[in-house]
């Protein structure tokens, strides 16, 4: 294995003010340092400069693209392009446009990772991105809604179930490969007896190899961002933890941290430590489940059964510890809803140690299962350059040499006090991803132990006494990757805008790179090694 050089940390461009100077010099744009969880905010009045700034941040400085947040203010659109500077913090490029200007130049040509974000904004806000190669049918499926509905605009009332609709029932998926002998195999949205998530894949082929794989997602789109608007903080929290259950705690944590930073409160030290513990418990459980799915996709029944037993044991341990199998109802802005006694903590520790021990046994045996390894090695390769241009995140990114982890790069809760490694691989194939899942699971078990050892007595909840208007970014490294929640509150403490940027959304865009040019029968295996959640992407 070749180990790439350690990611060169960007010389502290942000804190020394060097980046601000470059931006002011080159683009004469306003640069502010703001406290909304964001290190630097670059103000743009004209969209011509946008592509050049994106080229500087993404192309030259190799910042990660986090996502695009569109906000509709009374007289202006604010388009917030979020970037992560390694180990320095978040940078936001804010483009302001009058409300009647709905055409914006696309940055997808510079930032491939922005492709889906622009398609989403086009579909939901009715904005048009000039020169974007493929707009139209995306989140609102054309068989259900006509183009131009724009449900995220403030004037749209989400609680009217029956709207005037002119669905295009003749809608057909776009085929890319057209040649003699070429055919397309549609998969989904109800497949595998329905126990898979609803996704539609159009696998285009000329025989054995998949030439193009076009996923169609958003069957589970429930407009979480829209129905959260106008809700009180505790009610929107229910949505934050229930839109994607497999990483519920990480999402509720990102939401709570955003609210806490708007209200300028800090949760007590014990709560922050318990949050680390619960995050890692969730990651361990998620990775055990993903390992089970990978084994079962290769039809290796015994380890699949064993890994799913480990997963179920962790679900039971989570339930015994916290009262809920998926860790719902624990986080709240200001801390945790409940405390845990020493007895419960020790019981959890024993379960986690046991799970990690069993995973080690499993990994050792899998390393000698040649037929299993044949299905994973050099299959579904995402090379580091592609991973970079798509800003892939989480274990999938780390298996392609992207050493990003918000727990280390932008510590939240109290991750700065822990000793842990961020495992990564550079091959970018299915086996690299499997190794990353195993290695991260062991690290999570270590973190749970450390959190229990470091735990100090104290309160777990800082009660919220008053509301403030404002906006902030909350983030967490969910089991699938980096998740960012942008929350804006109005004066009465109600949600004005809630934007959820999920790792599955980012990584689904990258799946096609891994699938193309591999055989049909590899497809379910590649899908399993990505460990993605459709419902987290759909929201």
């Amino acid at each position, binding site marked *: 294995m070749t180990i790439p050089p350690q990611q060169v940390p960007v010389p502290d461009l942000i804190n020394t003010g060097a980046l601000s100077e470059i931006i002011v010099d080159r683009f004469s744009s306003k640069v502010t340092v703001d406290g909304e969880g964001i290190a630097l905010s670059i103000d743009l009045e004209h969209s011509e400069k946008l592509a050049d700034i994106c080229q500087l941040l993404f192309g030259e400085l190799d910042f990660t693209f986090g996502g695009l947040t569109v906000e509709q203010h009374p007289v202006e659109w604010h388009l917030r392009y979020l970037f992560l500077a390694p180990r320095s913090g978040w940078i936001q490029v804010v483009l302001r446009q009058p409300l009647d200007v709905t055409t914006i130049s696309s940055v997808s040509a510079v930032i491939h990772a922005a492709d889906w974000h622009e398609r989403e904004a086009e579909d939901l806000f009715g904005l048009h991105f000039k020169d974007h190669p493929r707009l139209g049918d995306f989140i609102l499926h054309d068989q259900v809604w006509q183009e131009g509905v724009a*449900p995220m605009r403030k004037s749209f009332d989400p609680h009217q179930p029956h709207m005037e609709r002119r669905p295009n029932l003749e809608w057909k998926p776009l085929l890319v490969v057209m040649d003699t002998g070429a055919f397309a195999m549609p998969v989904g949205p109800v497949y595998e007896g329905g126990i898979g998530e*609803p996704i539609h894949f159009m696998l285009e082929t000329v025989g054995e190899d998949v030439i193009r794989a076009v996923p169609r997602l958003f*069957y589970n789109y429930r407009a979480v961002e829209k129905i959260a608007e106008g809700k009180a903080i*505790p009610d929107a929290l229910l949505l934050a933890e229930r839109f994607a259950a497999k990483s519920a705690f990480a999402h509720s944590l990102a939401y709570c941290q955003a609210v806490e930073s708007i209200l300028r409160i800090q949760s007590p030290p014990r709560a922050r430590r318990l949050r680390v513990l619960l995050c890692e418990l969730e990651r361990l459980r998620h990775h055990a489940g993903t390992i089970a799915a990978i084994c079962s996709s290769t039809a290796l029944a015994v380890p699949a059964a064993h890994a799913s037993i480990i997963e*179920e044991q962790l679900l039971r341990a989570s339930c015994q510890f916290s009262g809920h199998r998926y860790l719902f109802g624990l986080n709240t802005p200001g801390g945790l809803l409940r405390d845990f006694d020493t007895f419960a903590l020790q019981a959890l520790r024993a379960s986690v140690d046991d799970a990690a021990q069993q995973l080690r046994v499993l990994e050792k045996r899998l390393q000698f299962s040649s037929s299993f390894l044949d299905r994973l090695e050099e299959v579904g390769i995402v090379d580091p350059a592609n991973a970079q241009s798509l800003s892939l995140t989480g274990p999938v990114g780390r298996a392609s040499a992207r050493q990003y982890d918000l727990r280390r790069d932008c510590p939240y809760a109290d991750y700065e006090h822990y000793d842990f490694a961020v495992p990564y691989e550079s091959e970018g194939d299915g086996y690299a991803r499997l190794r990353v899942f195993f290695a991260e699971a062991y690290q999570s078990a270590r973190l749970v132990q450390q959190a229990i050892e470091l735990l100090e007595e104290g309160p777990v909840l800082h009660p919220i006494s008053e509301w403030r208007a404002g906006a902030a970014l909350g983030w967490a490294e969910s089991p699938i990757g980096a998740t960012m929640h942008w929350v804006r509150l109005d004066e009465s403490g109600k949600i004005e805008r809630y934007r959820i940027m999920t790792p599955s959304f980012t990584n689904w865009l990258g799946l096609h790179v891994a699938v193309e040019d591999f055989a049909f029968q590899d497809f379910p295996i590649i899908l399993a090694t990505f460990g993605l959640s459709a419902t987290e992407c759909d929201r």
Partner: protein
Amino acid sequence: MSFWFLHGLRNGIQSSRYPASPESAPGVSSGRPVTTRFASAAEASQVAGICPSGVLIASGEVVNVDLRGCIHCQRCRFGSPQNMTWEMDYEWASMALGRNESRPFPVAYRRSLHVMVVDAGDCGACLHEVQQLNNPLYNMHRLGFFFAATPRAADVLLAVGPVSENMRGPLLKTYEAMPDPKRVIAAGTCAITGGVFGNSFMSAGGVASVLPVDLEIPGDPPPPLALLHGLLTVVGRKPPSEREPYFKKGA
């Protein structure tokens, strides 16, 4: 690779004995609130006020629970000085609202039932609990239940999620493709009442607004054993939950 064979043998049978005997392992169910009596009417109405989905209904000193809509947020369990009693059972499946008589399948289905699952806007929790039925710890095959590969071979449609608009068509098509006799189970609070997603332009607010539902399995999510209880109920091997599932407001 014979070590896998030995590995499997060494681990032995780990499946639950349910329904022959109750499952007692801790953590198999998140539990749910049950009717609780408080010291005073004021206390009762205070506890009932905590519930974000409004399913705690105080009448005098007693707080009843509309179990169909409980989302297990645990705020009435840990969130106040006086808390509701939570029961850790799991036999939760009950007849759908408005359906008085059960329509069990003919006897031939009792030990051979093919289940079609449709995820219609679910958060992943209910679907994951459904997948756990294939976990060796639950192993629904031992009871003669199987996931059907296609709706043509299915007897029961197990729908999870509040029915997102984009999934309404696929859900209906799946139902129509199933041969008679067929039954529909709505699993999870979202599939019953819409849950936190409620009624909106993108959520139909439950499976019943799209399909005739026979059986409801409340829970957010219902644990695997509650789902097993639902399947056993639909073939007549278990009676539906005895607990009155619904209390009218003000009753």
